[in-house]
């Protein structure tokens, strides 16, 4: 698994780096392979942005599909050149010294600067899996730094494939708490569950009680399990003047297993029609939200 990932990463890099940059990078990888200490590893990781730059990777459609084919959900859309190179080093290390890998990675993460933390966590789905890695990711999720949290939560298949329900639910809830977004969470719909739906409705009520806005995306994880009191909450959200929230609540009601949900939806015929025609989906809502924030 790590071997193919390394090959893909190296190929993306070699398509973008100058010959000088490529040769520096290959030399460093050899030095790491030959060295008995972590010194070359630290120097290489530290020098990568200086030598290779910090531009966006901007992967092509073919590269994205190769990534997803290799590890479903691996989505490097927002990766940069330096983070790609750092992840390549880590994958290289995993095949060089598998028995020390977890300890080395733990040490690197403990000493990481912001950009390194983001890079190291973005690549976790590509590393050899272990309980120590899982603990590291749990630690990473506890961060207060939104971009580090998002390196794990967004466009990363690790949470959907590894988290138990409690950790998954808390990740979704934390994303809302730190003003992050839910749409980029891989497996958001697949991992939705009744417990999360209940927690999110409680959270929405807490926000209403405090006179605060409720993030429209929250309802996406509520819809498929909405019955009883949850339908009432969705009805309330659908009655707001905020277009995004209204559309989201009605979209959630269209997923509800409860007949009562469909009655509420039908009392908003215009939006119900947009949903039925496929004109209004979670993707279009998220795109509209992004456009109105930009």
């Amino acid at each position, binding site marked *: 698994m790590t071997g193919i990932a390394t090959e893909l990463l190296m190929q993306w890099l070699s398509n973008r780096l100058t010959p000088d940059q490529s040769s520096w990078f290959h030399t460093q990888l050899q030095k790491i392979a030959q060295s008995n200490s972590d010194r070359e590893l630290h120097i290489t990781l530290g020098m990568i942005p200086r030598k290779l730059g910090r531009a966006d990777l901007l992967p092509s459609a073919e590269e994205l599909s190769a990534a997803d084919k290799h590890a479903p959900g691996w989505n490097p859309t927002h990766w940069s050149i330096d983070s790609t190179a750092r992840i390549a080093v880590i994958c290289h290390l995993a095949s060089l010294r598998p028995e020390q890998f977890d300890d080395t990675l733990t040490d690197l993460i*403990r000493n990481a600067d912001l950009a390194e933390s983001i890079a190291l966590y973005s690549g976790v789905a590509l590393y050899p899996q272990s309980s120590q890695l899982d603990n590291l990711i749990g630690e990473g999720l506890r961060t207060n730094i939104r971009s580090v949290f998002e390196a794990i939560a967004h466009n990363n298949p690790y949470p959907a494939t590894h988290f138990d329900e409690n950790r998954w639910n808390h990740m979704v809830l934390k994303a809302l708490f730190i003003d992050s977004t839910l749409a980029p969470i891989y497996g958001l719909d697949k991992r939705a569950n009744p417990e999360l739906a209940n927690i999110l409705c409680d959270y929405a009520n807490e926000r209403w009680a405090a006179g605060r806005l409720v993030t429209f995306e929250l309802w996406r994880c509520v819809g498929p399990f909405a019955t009883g009191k949850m339908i009432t909450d969705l009805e309330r959200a659908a009655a707001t003047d905020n277009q995004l929230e209204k559309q989201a609540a009605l979209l959630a009601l269209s997923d509800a297993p409860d007949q009562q949900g469909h009655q509420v939806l039908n009392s908003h015929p215009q939006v119900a029609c947009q949903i039925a025609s496929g004109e209004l989906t979670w993707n279009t809502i998220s795109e509209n939200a992004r456009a109105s924030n930009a």
Partner: protein
Amino acid sequence: MMFIDPHAHMISRTTDDYEAMAASGIVAVIEPAFWVGQPRTHVGTYIDYLSAIIGFERFRAGQFGIRHYCTVGLNSKEANNEALAEDVMEILPRFALKEGVVAIGEIGYDEQTELEDKYFRLQLELAKELELPVMIHTPHRDKKRGTSRSMDVCEEHGMDPSKIIVDHNNEETVREVLDRGYWAAFSIYPSTKMGNARMVEILAEYGAERIMVDSACDWGISEPLGVAKTAKLALERGIPQDQVEMVCYKNALMAYGQSGQMHEDDWLNPTAIDQRTMYEGNSILRGGREPMVQETAVKRNANELIIE
């Protein structure tokens, strides 16, 4: 006017300070690794401290539209704990290459002991090897001789004065520091180091070349708006604007920019990845309101309710 505060221990400051600094025109700060008010006794706490200033503090500053840089080093007080000092020297190289580390510092003398001397010299060698500038903390006691000695030692190690910033100067030290070709920094710190009015006198006498002003704000009674307030007073007292810009912005950028880790583009034209991940942008640079030094000073007041 844009300002840089090239010496600010933001880890000890509140978000009110960040807000006030951003509103006063600060676009970037440099956080030197220092003594935290109480001795650290384990290398582990040092590691976590250095991780905090290269990580979380950088993120915190970015939320207020301020770019955050730092220096790493073993400070002179803790150099006297030999066991700790040895361990810290071991881990310093790996932190020195982190993003946004603009110098080895603040290093130098406190009581001018043998151990202080030993670790000062070792860190000068490290800076030379990694081609990083050095920020020197000059001692509070026996300052004049301590400052001269710091420069003597730098020269013994073949250091280039144009890559060394000698900090916490006063009227008694500035002449020699400038004459020997070093950058001279002044900490506008109430009661102990330097005051606004004295600073303006120094600018009138020495001009702006190789001089920079900082706040050195920390856990003590200090003034995070030291740079902005000094600039205001200097302009009022007739120091030309271009000179004020040099001492409150350009010289710090020039001196610490020699690390290759600090560029004007970082705040004027940040990279896409930074905008997505660590830097929320500065409302003043985005064409927001005029810088206001005084505005936030009255915020800490029990009559200001949290209305929401």
